């Protein structure tokens, strides 16, 4: 069984093999180290000229890669910790994401910025955050997040093939999750949707960014829709099973891999049946991804939305101390508790 990490690593190998225009840039990428989280492992050995290990310059690096992208290459930038994305905010928001549209659709920026987010490793306030919420809703910037279903590597490969900038959000704990086989999911019914993802100004529709819907096989109708992405989708799947077996609460879980721009349809399809939605994310609550989910569902369903809630990290910095960190971030138990309250 493959891990998400292996899948992503393999995808980078494949992408670099397939296209000599693909470059990988980032800090400490060279083998044997292969990047802080090892997603780059083996690449500098296989493609020594196309893995550019860089100084510590997150803004410069993203800007430089945008320039490469404007001139015919397909750079992939690794930002060592997602926490440092704040340093590239100007390059992402005021440069890479704007170029195509502001230059009247005459240029393209096939740039991918990948970065690991997330806590639960005790790294403390500056190395544990899930800051993607600050970048969602940037016109011209697609944001993707693999989960442990489907083919995370394919999601990355498609991102690299795209002609518009993509922010690709990985999660540190997701790396080691194994992609379950059909047998592992035997208790579940899995629907994969590949929604024609909302084409927004300055962005084309993208080919592979599936949404998944999971149900307990043969269960009574679900009374609550869980929505999640990334590692939280993994935890939500555990919660879903536990809720069914231990509490006889049946839920549906919708997992998105495209966070922005996105279509709410797969979520609506489920909430139309269940009437209730719980959006789950690891980032801090306020102005998070879940707000957009709930707002869209509420707008679409009006009074048919019986209940909506969000579960997220506390609105505080993330402490290094294990017990404090565990309280700060939402886990399976918290999902179960929140779900129970809603039905």
């Amino acid at each position, binding site marked *: 069984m493959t891990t998400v990490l292996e899948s992503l690593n393999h995808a980078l190998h494949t992408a670099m093999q397939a296209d000599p225009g693909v*470059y990988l840039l980032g800090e400490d990428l060279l083998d044997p180290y292969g990047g802080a989280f090892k997603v780059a492992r083996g690449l500098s050995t296989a493609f020594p000229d196309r893995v*550019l290990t*860089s*100084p510590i*310059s997150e*803004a*410069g*690096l*993203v*800007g*430089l*890669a*945008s*320039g*490469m*992208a*404007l*001139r*015919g*290459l397909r*750079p992939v930038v690794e930002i060592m910790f997602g926490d440092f994305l704040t340093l590239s905010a*100007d*390059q992402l928001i*005021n*440069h890479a994401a704007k*170029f195509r*549209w*502001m*230059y*009247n659709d*005459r*240029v393209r920026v096939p740039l991918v910025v990948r970065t690991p987010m997330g806590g639960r490793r005790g790294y403390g306030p500056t190395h544990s955050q899930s800051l993607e919420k600050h970048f969602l809703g940037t016109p011209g910037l697609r944001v993707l997040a693999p989960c442990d279903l489907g083919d995370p590597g394919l999601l990355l490969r498609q991102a690299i093939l795209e002609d518009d900038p993509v922010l690709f959000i990985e999660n540190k704990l997701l790396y080691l999750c194994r992609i379950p086989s059909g047998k592992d999911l035997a208790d579940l019914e899995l629907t994969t949707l590949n929604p024609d993802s*909302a*084409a*927004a*100004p300055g962005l084309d529709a993208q080919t592979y960014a599936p949404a998944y819907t999971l149900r307990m096989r043969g269960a009574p109708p679900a009374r609550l829709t869980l929505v999640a992405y990334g590692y939280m989708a993994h935890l939500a799947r555990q919660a879903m099973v536990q809720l069914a077996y231990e509490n006889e609460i049946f839920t549906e879980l919708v997992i998105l891999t495209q966070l922005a*721009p996105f279509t709410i349809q797969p979520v609506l399809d489920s909430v139309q049946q269940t009437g209730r939605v719980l959006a789950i994310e690891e980032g801090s609550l306020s102005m998070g991804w879940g707000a957009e989910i709930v*707002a*869209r569902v509420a*707008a679409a369903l009006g009074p048919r939305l019986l209940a909506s809630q969000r579960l997220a990290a506390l609105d505080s910095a993330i402490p290094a101390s294990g017990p404090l960190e565990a309280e700060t971030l939402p886990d399976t138990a918290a999902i179960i508790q929140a779900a129970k309250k809603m039905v």
Partner: protein
Amino acid sequence: MTISVQDPSAFYRALCRIRSFEETVLENFPKGVFFGTTHTYIGQEANAVGVLAHCQPQDIVFSNHRCHGHFLAYGGDPHALFAELMGKSTGVCGGRGGSQHLQWKNFYSNGIQGGITPVATGMALAERLQGHSPVVFTFIGDGTLGEGALYESLNLASLWHAPVLFVLENNRIAQTTPVDIAVAGNMAARFSAFGIPAQELDSSDVLEIYPLAGKLVDEVRETQTPRALILHTCRFGPHSKGDDTRSEEAIERMKTQRDPLHLQAARVNDEQSIQIRSEISAEIAAAFQAALADPFPVIHAVAGSSI
């Protein structure tokens, strides 16, 4: 646009085109025909003309907020530029960009100080990696020496051999801030500290700027490594419109001593210079009128303003 030094009138023409364009902009701004704001290049024309005379078709220019002169010296169409400032569909970017955000052929500009430098560095690197031998001309002002992104770019350009010519136009002021209260230490040293050879010139004479630029352009092209050219220059006009805090005398002194058009006019005979000025005047007036008559863009494709 390659200009030969053999032909002083070609330089004069190029200088006049910029001057005439910019004067037309300032003159007509109060009439409400343009959107937003503008940063005119009056006084600095010799920089764009002298430097970009070395620009080959495969080369790239990345400019900043004060980009009209660079755009015109690059060979950009005054009509398209007027139209862009007027928000017309015939504008350089169909009216989306406005004065500071241009893209045409290998010309780009953006209005965020400093942010263009890593992008330009990446372009240079990409071109070199793809087997071309370009020069990427990157224009920044003295004020932009305040931005950290610049130094990240210098380090990366130096380490990774990006064929960039950083052209620093030191007009001794940033908006209203004099250079001496905004830039500590030494300008050339800020480049050489990163292993980037820098040369300086304090002149408004296109015939002094042209050869020095040529030398550095050749070095960049041959070695495919970065260089910096620091041009000490004079901004005659306001930062944008009507926001000049300098004394009138100081500006008058600059205009008398440092006008690149005067300097170059002396090398063209009177008759010819009158002729050039009137041709340019007509060209710019026609461009302005044509742009005025152009249509506004049609409603752009809309995605979700309300959900």
